């Protein structure tokens, strides 16, 4: 009789267990093209990644004389991420600095926490929060009108906070919406220090290996006139998962920078003038 009860409980709990099955790989990497996705690493997993953005593909700085931008490097970022548990990751990276207007030679520390994970027949979406602190090691400028004058040490820091919600609608299609706030301790005269941004990203799986990812960031602040003085960040990439924890993408983006504190406030590159560029991301997952 006791065995029958146990069997009954097991049978009853079975549909509940399958109904609550978590949805994995809404996105394959911690970044969609450049903006952060809701994905965090698994416990004790490492991710080593390199992202590269080349020079302008077309326009006065591109074309055949510059091998379509391959002769110039706009930004390079090398970083590690580490999964402290299934919902929390920490990361450290170093980037060259993409936009000539932004602070460059940065060390970036980030924390990402997953608040909700999408489940089959359960939670409808994944929700994550992300915080980034960027520290510029650039040489001090002697010009007081430069951002790099660094009158105070704290001017070397820039912060970014972001919340994003994503849903995997089918095994082929995922969509993410988010909002961000970027705070610059020092800003150009006439500009506001804080910038709010709207973020969107999507992923379309073509087959087992190939996928298309695209994302965009729209900055909003009193000094920003979008599509005039500033441009939204736009990116599209072909993502290739070669297996064994190796993810590779080839991208086209208008922004030169690879870090939120760079490409959200300082994207001025106009696609209609050929100011977009090739780039790639190499990512390798490791487990110790």
């Amino acid at each position: 009789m006791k065995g029958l009860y146990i069997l009954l409980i097991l049978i009853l709990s079975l549909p509940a267990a399958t109904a609550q099955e978590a949805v994995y790989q809404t996105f394959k990497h911690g970044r969609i093209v450049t903006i952060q996705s809701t994905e965090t690493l698994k416990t004790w997993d490492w991710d080593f990644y390199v992202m590269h953005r080349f020079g302008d593909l077309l326009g006065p700085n591109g074309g055949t004389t510059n091998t379509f931008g391959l002769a110039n490097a706009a930004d390079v970022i090398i970083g590690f991420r580490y999964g402290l548990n299934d919902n929390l990751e920490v990361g450290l990276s170093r980037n060259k600095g993409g936009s000539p207007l932004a602070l460059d030679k940065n060390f970036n520390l980030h924390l990402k926490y997953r608040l909700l994970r999408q489940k089959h027949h359960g939670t409808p979406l994944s929700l994550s929060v992300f915080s980034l602190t960027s520290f510029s090691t650039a040489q001090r400028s002697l010009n007081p009108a430069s951002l790099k004058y660094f009158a105070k040490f704290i001017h070397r820091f820039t912060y970014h906070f972001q919340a994003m919600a994503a849903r995997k609608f089918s095994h082929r299609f995922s969509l993410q919406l988010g909002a961000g706030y970027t705070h610059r301790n020092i800003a150009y005269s006439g500009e506001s220090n804080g910038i709010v941004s709207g973020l969107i990203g999507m992923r379309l799986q073509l087959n087992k290996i190939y996928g298309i990812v695209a994302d965009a960031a729209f900055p909003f602040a009193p000094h920003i006139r979008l599509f005039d003085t500033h441009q939204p960040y736009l990116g599209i990439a072909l993502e290739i998962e070669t297996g064994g924890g190796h993810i590779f993408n080839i991208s086209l983006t208008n922004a030169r920078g690879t870090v939120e504190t760079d490409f959200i406030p300082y994207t001025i590159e106009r696609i209609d003038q050929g100011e977009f560029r090739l780039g790639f991301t190499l990512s390798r997952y490791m487990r110790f």
Partner: protein
Amino acid sequence: MRSLRTHIFRIIIGIAFISTASLLSHCTFDKVEAVPLECDHPYTFESNDSFKVRPIFELTCSYQGCHERNASIGDFTQYRTLKPFIRNGKIFRRVIENKDMPPPYATGPKTLTTEELQAIECWLAAGGPP
């Protein structure tokens, strides 16, 4: 192994939260200084013979090895190829605001004189006419 990982986990979390909290308490809302502009002359790139900025560009930017003809980093020898840089604000930001152009490794002059800067700034303030 597990307990070592738990220790590492706690240490990293502790450092991350302390550093984040201490940095957030140091948020500033500072701006770089703005200098008032006085423009008495109608500067152009080359169409007004008395007030043109082309000689400044030739002396400090568009010489051989830098922003020369068909240069990958931007051709500043002619208005047509210079125009995108005026329009997207890069000339203003780098020459007037950041003053990191010309760069320290330039083979020509490494800084612009106050008069040259004033002329370029006035020219840009007028929309950078040809």
